[in-house]
């Protein structure tokens, strides 16, 4: 592709004898915000470290901006990395933290000062110059770590779990911050996360990984509505996934007749896709919790537990009671195993 900025070709990454990522192929477009999403151990952090140069590939090739950087050491790749723990230098002030990389470049004192001040302003930390990282809040520390990488004007910015250490409100702020920075600077960003809602909110494209391989790659809307496999579906929030046999759903505990035939060998429903209160099936309520705009039920059924969300307007069903429900064809997602 013409505007491929980072490409990983046949990349195999291993720790000692264990192969963490076998034969990965991925092209990242210039200026995009791409997420590596997956559970722990799926290889997303390993891949990120390989792009950064902290891990030497066993085989394969990494290209950044047309240059083969596979053998280039980490301090010469022109990438930026915001660590999950921020990795700020505790013995330096905020200003010196941000200026650290610039000072290594033999710029004049005035140039360093100008760039550093500009960098801190970009993340809204003007006035914090003399503070030590330990004297700053979590959100401020992260913005500082971000500024430290951004002033280097990296070709690619890598972020390791950027939002996982933050509380809900900060998370929202930081999300907006990252999007704004990306729009303003146009830097290609790759971030690693295990949280699907983070990936959905931020990314232009999502790379869902499992066991070192790419399970599915696509735009957030596509991944959300049309996961291809059971793993992808489960990761993207489809809680009710069952095998299909003819017109029945089957599990280890029993069968449930659906009333329609499916092409795929698995079907999945989001909790919001299950209709509660009316339908051909009956289930006993095992659990019920109030979630603001809807109620979350766990229903007992012949094929196992069904997680269903009912809008707040539907009459509440109490624990132990039986309620009718349906797994409609319209909201079913067809999957391959």
């Amino acid at each position, binding site marked *: 592709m013409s505007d491929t900025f980072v490409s990983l070709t046949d990349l195999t990454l291993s720790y000692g004898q264990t192969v963490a990522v076998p034969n990965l192929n991925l092209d990242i477009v210039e200026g995009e915000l791409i997420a590596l999403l997956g559970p722990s151990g799926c290889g997303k952090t390993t891949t990120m470290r390989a792009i*950064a*140069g*902290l891990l030497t590939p066993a085989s394969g090739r990494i290209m950044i901006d047309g240059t083969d950087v596979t053998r280039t*050491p*980490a*301090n*010469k*790749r022109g*990438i*930026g*990395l915001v*660590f999950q*723990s921020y*990795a*700020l*230098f*505790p*013995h330096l002030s905020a200003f010196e933290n941000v200026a*650290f*990389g610039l000072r*290594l*470049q033999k710029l004049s004192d005035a140039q360093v000062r100008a760039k550093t001040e500009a960098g801190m302003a970009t993340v809204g930390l003007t006035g914090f110059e003399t503070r030590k990282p330990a004297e700053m809040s979590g959100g401020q520390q992260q913005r500082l770590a971000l500024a*430290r*990488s951004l002033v*280097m004007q990296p070709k690619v910015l890598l972020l390791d779990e950027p939002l996982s250490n933050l509380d809900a409100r900060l998370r929202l702020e930081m999300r907006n911050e990252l999007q704004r920075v990306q729009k303003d600077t146009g830097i290609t960003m790759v971030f690693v996360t295990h949280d699907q809602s983070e990936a959905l909110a931020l990314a232009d494209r999502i790379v869902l990984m499992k066991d070192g391989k790419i399970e599915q790659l696509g735009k957030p809307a596509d991944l959300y509505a049309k996961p291809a496999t059971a793993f992808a579906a489960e990761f993207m929030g489809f809680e009710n996934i069952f095998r299909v046999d003819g017109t029945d759903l089957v599990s280890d505990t029993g069968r449930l007749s659906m009333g329609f035939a499916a092409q795929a060998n698995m079907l999945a429903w989001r909790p919001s896709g299950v209709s509660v209160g009316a339908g051909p099936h009956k289930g006993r309520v095992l659990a019920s919790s109030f979630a603001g705009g809807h109620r979350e039920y766990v229903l007992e059924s012949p094929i196992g537990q069904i997680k269903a969300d009912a809008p707040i307007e539907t009459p509440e069903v109490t624990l132990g009671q039986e309620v009718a429900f349906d797994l409609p064809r319209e909201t079913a997602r067809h999957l391959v195993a």
Partner: protein
Amino acid sequence: MSRLTIWVILGVTLTFLIGPFLIVIFAGMSAGEALAFPPQGLSLKWYAKVFTVESFRASFALSLFLAIFGTLAALAIGIPAAYALNRYDLPGAEMIRTIVAAPIIVPGIIVGLALLRYFVVPLDVTITMALFVTHAALVLPYAVRVVSSSLNNLRSDMEEAAVILGCTRFQAFTKVVLPNIRGGILAAFILGFVTSFNEVPASLFLSGPGVRTLPIDMLSYMEITFDPSVAALSALLAFMSVAIVFIAERLLGFSRYV
């Protein structure tokens, strides 16, 4: 346990542990000629006399030299070793650790004797050199252990961050690691200094006429004369050690590293 019981137990224990020093301090202040407690009259003459004894001055200088430079030498090879053991996945790391820690396990007198017979004599090394090498070897395990403990508390992603920002590995070490283990290094230096200064068994065999460490000198002085000057000197040395450690604790919370 009642407060009273606690203070009684601690009182007795501390009296047992520290009482003797206080006695030495006062015995050294005796105005008389003989060693006794309570002292017959108070005078600082023995404390003053200590500074005039020629051999004490010489051995003090030697002990000081060994403590400072022996420890520095130990740190010079100990810090890289601690760093390597801590940050790298070395084959035989356990064996290296055991080798480096060995001098602590072997009784000092054996070390002194072994070095005298199989190092000093065959290689015709000067006594000072032998003492220097011995003290460095005895301090090295402490240096490695304390610096290791400091490094353990420092996350390695800081060095990675420095490298990504453009540092070479060496620059990352000097700009990021060293400033943050400064406290540990200082603690290691002080621990090494005190260990070396107070060392007796190994230095016993290696010391010779005219070339003695201070503790050895005191021991031989005690065999000849029994006046309070040894008490005074002991008290002075105790003050010195205590002062060093006290200042270190104030400066950097020394106890954290040991």
